[in-house]
């Protein structure tokens, strides 16, 4: 029965994961619109269904039935490929995230950290190719901004990840969650959380680092020439990225699927719900930041990264090394 373990189970798990993520994406848009509306003394979607709960479905139907428009001068093949390239990394990064005790989403590989870094690295391709292939100045500028921004912010992000890795002592995310941590480790981790969160904001192109798609300067940035379902795919990629990175942060900083102090640790089915709750709280942070923080200029963004975040990340890594050597 090897083929069941090797093929059928992973396929079933993947399908389940994708369905959960896409539904999560749909309701994340609702969640964000409702929350933003509350921040902005508005009501938000309330027409489609009770509390506007059917709004995501209405949006999906609209996006699917929109006319397909491809610009003449676009590089057609790349233009069509780009949205998929943006969406796929956002989905497959989930493979290594543990969702319940002893249960990774797809596979408990011993290179979980490397997987995250590697997939985060290829995430920018979709955006860059979209901007380049659209043959539009706004798109191109957006793509340029995006590539520069994502590559720059991956450096401190990677360095922070390495620090966590050193504390954890292994590449596997499953063992990271299950190994108990000392109290000073938690505090030392949480000290870094705000900076890590900033990197994540830049990595996911979220406000205030949404420079690649600044609607006020670049119309819609790299996705200016995209409409209908192709636009929806980019949208999906961004929002699933938000969910994914929230899950990663929950796993790295807040014990993933576990309740604090090992409460109800034996109830395996509780794991996904605990993780989901943590993700929802972290998503609230994303939206809260969007509602209250202004946007920096492109050069200021780069300066902040190279002159502040990266040195701090390196310093943090050195101190972590010393802590690990002397205290563990």
């Amino acid at each position, binding site marked *: 029965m090897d083929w069941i373990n090797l093929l059928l189970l992973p396929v079933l798990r993947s399908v389940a994961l994708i369905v959960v993520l896409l539904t999560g994406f749909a309701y994340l848009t609702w969640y964000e619109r409702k929350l*933003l509306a509350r*921040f*902005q*003394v*508005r009501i938000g979607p309330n027409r489609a269904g009770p509390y506007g709960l059917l709004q995501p479905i209405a949006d999906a139907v609209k996006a699917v039935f929109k006319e397909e428009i491809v610009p*003449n*001068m676009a590089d057609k093949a790349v233009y069509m490929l780009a949205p998929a390239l943006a969406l796929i990394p956002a989905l497959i990064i989930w493979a290594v995230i543990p969702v319940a005790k002893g249960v990774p989403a797809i596979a408990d590989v011993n290179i979980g950290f490397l997987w995250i870094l590697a997939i985060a690295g290829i995430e920018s391709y979709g955006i860059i190719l979209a901007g380049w292939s659209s043959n539009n*100045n*706004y798109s*191109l*500028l957006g793509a*340029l*901004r995006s590539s520069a921004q994502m590559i720059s912010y991956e450096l401190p992000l990677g360095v922070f990840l390495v620090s966590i890795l050193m504390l954890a002592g292994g590449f596997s995310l499953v063992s990271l969650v299950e190994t108990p941590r000392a109290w000073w480790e938690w505090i030392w981790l949480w000290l870094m959380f705000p900076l890590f969160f900033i990197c994540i904001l830049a990595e996911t192109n979220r*406000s*205030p680092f*949404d420079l690649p798609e*600044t*609607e*006020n*300067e*670049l*119309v819609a940035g790299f996705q200016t020439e995209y409409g209908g379902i192709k636009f929806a795919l980019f949208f999906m990629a961004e929002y699933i990225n938000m969910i994914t990175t929230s899950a990663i942060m929950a796993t790295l900083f807040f014990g993933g699927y576990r309740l604090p102090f090992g409460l109800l640790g034996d109830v395996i089915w509780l794991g996904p719900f605990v993780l989901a709750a943590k993700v929802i709280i972290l998503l609230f942070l994303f939206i809260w930041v*969007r*509602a*209250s*923080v*202004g*946007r*920096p*200029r*492109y*050069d*200021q963004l780069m300066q902040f990264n190279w002159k502040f975040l990266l040195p701090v990340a390196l310093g943090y890594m050195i101190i972590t090394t010393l802590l690990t050597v002397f205290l563990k």
Partner: protein
Amino acid sequence: MLNVSPRRREYETLPSLNNPAIPARAPLPQGETDDTKRIVERFGDAVIAAGLHNDQQMVYIRPDQLVDLANFLKTEEKLAYEALVDVSSVDCSKLPAGETIDARFHTVYQLRSYTRKRHLTVVCPADGGSQPVVPSLAPVFEGAVWPEREVYDLMGVGFSGHPDLRRILMPENWPNHPLRKDMPLGGEPVPFTLTWEDPEFETLGKQVLPAESVAPVLPPGMNRERMIVNMGPHHPSTHGVLRLVVELDGEDVIHVDPDLGYLHSGFEKTGENKRYKDFVYYTDRMDYLSAMNNNLGYVLAVEKLLGVEIPERAQVIRVIMSELQRIASHLFWLSTHVLDISGTGMSLLMYATRERERILDLFEMVAGARLTISYIRIGGVWKDLPPAFLSHLQDLVDLLPGKFDEYETMLTAGPLWQERLEGIGRLSREEAINMGLTGPMLRGSGVDWDLRRDMPYSGYENYDFDVPVSTDGDCYGRYIIRMEEMRQSVRILKQAMANLPDGLYRTDNRKVSLPPRAELDVSMEALIHHFKLMTEGLQVPPGMAYHGIEASKGELGFYVYSDGSAVPYRLHVRGPSFNNLYAISKMCRGHMLSDIVANIGSIDIVLGEVDR
């Protein structure tokens, strides 16, 4: 194929009961002042007439001496007219021949001395009959560049020595100059850029089908080697249908050329075919974010010609409305500025709009309309304040300062906002004056000038308020100024509420304002006045007047030339956004793409007023 609108109206004076004195020319200025005496001494015979007209200093000068006069006025220390506020023109072809001047076109310049608080009107009869040419003042005052382009475009007056004499509001291939008196209102052929018969249609039409795209014509001074980006006319942050052709080197801005006129609606031409009292409703539509200020500016210019006394209560009501409108306009500026710089998610957009709604509610209370209010009328205001108004206003006045503090904690206190605005769009004091900028743009560059304080109108001299001035000259300085102006407006509102006198809300001069309905039943005279005003409109004595008010965006000026009839012979609007927008090229050069957006927001334009 030419598209011809069905109704063709030639220029006509409205029925004026066969008054042979209509139309009449504006009388020449009489008497003299210190300044006109100096000018006459220096220029002698080149001065055709000089003196006072409607309490306004005015000089008629021959065109060959115009540039010398401008230089003299600007550099002579005892005169110090540093700024050219406005350029307009009059086509006199439907007026009777003058005794001393027989030129068809006059150009009219409004000059301002900020240090001496004086205003001077210079009129220059143009040489050349129907193809007039006047020397350009652009080499002396940089602020003349756009207004002279506008005069060239709409009136067909050429300016010799102008650096960039292109059309500005009308399309490049427009066959005529619409403000000339021989151009009828309506009925003129509209040459579309493309018609079905046009052979060019084949090639251009194919742009939507698979074919090579045709590169557009670039504005002068631009290089196709670099990236050219069209911001607008449909762009989220150009505040309407402004088009900016931007030359980019990476993210750095090399050159910006604004293209206007997408919203040109011919308000001036319309005004010349409407009776004085009927044009008030059109002024609302120009700067639709500060309709009350537009009403006030227009009404004051006409009242200046009429020489009518406005009752005290009406004056105070006007001040209340004008200040409320200033706050509303600044609030909207703040919300859009924040939107431009910080993105749609930023909540301040809605917070500022929420407070603006409160002000619009007040407007709705007094006039029934929220945006296009037309509340301020010639002779006073439309109706008296409703009884509940003052208590609602009191609530608002108590509420607003706290809200302003709230905004400032979100913006001024945060480092991101300051970093985005500081050092962006820097204009020196000399540049700001020379470019003819007004309002917060001028004060942001360190010129301590506010028409409300320095040339008071509507009783502003009775109020105690401060004029915020920033010497930084950048977007951050202008932001701070507007925030402070809102607080000062609240101060004025408090004083106005405390001192609101009882009495008439519009003048009882029956030649200007309608008699109350009750009077019609008992008074024959009232009935006649009512009949005359409704059929003929109010007749304004011949003359010309320029009146500028401190609107929220800068100096809003109305230049009115009356031929004695009930219709203005020439009506020119000096929109503050139009003149301020000229600075955009200089402000953006050397900055980054994102800063263009900050600069547009900082200038605070409304395209309805820029294009008029």
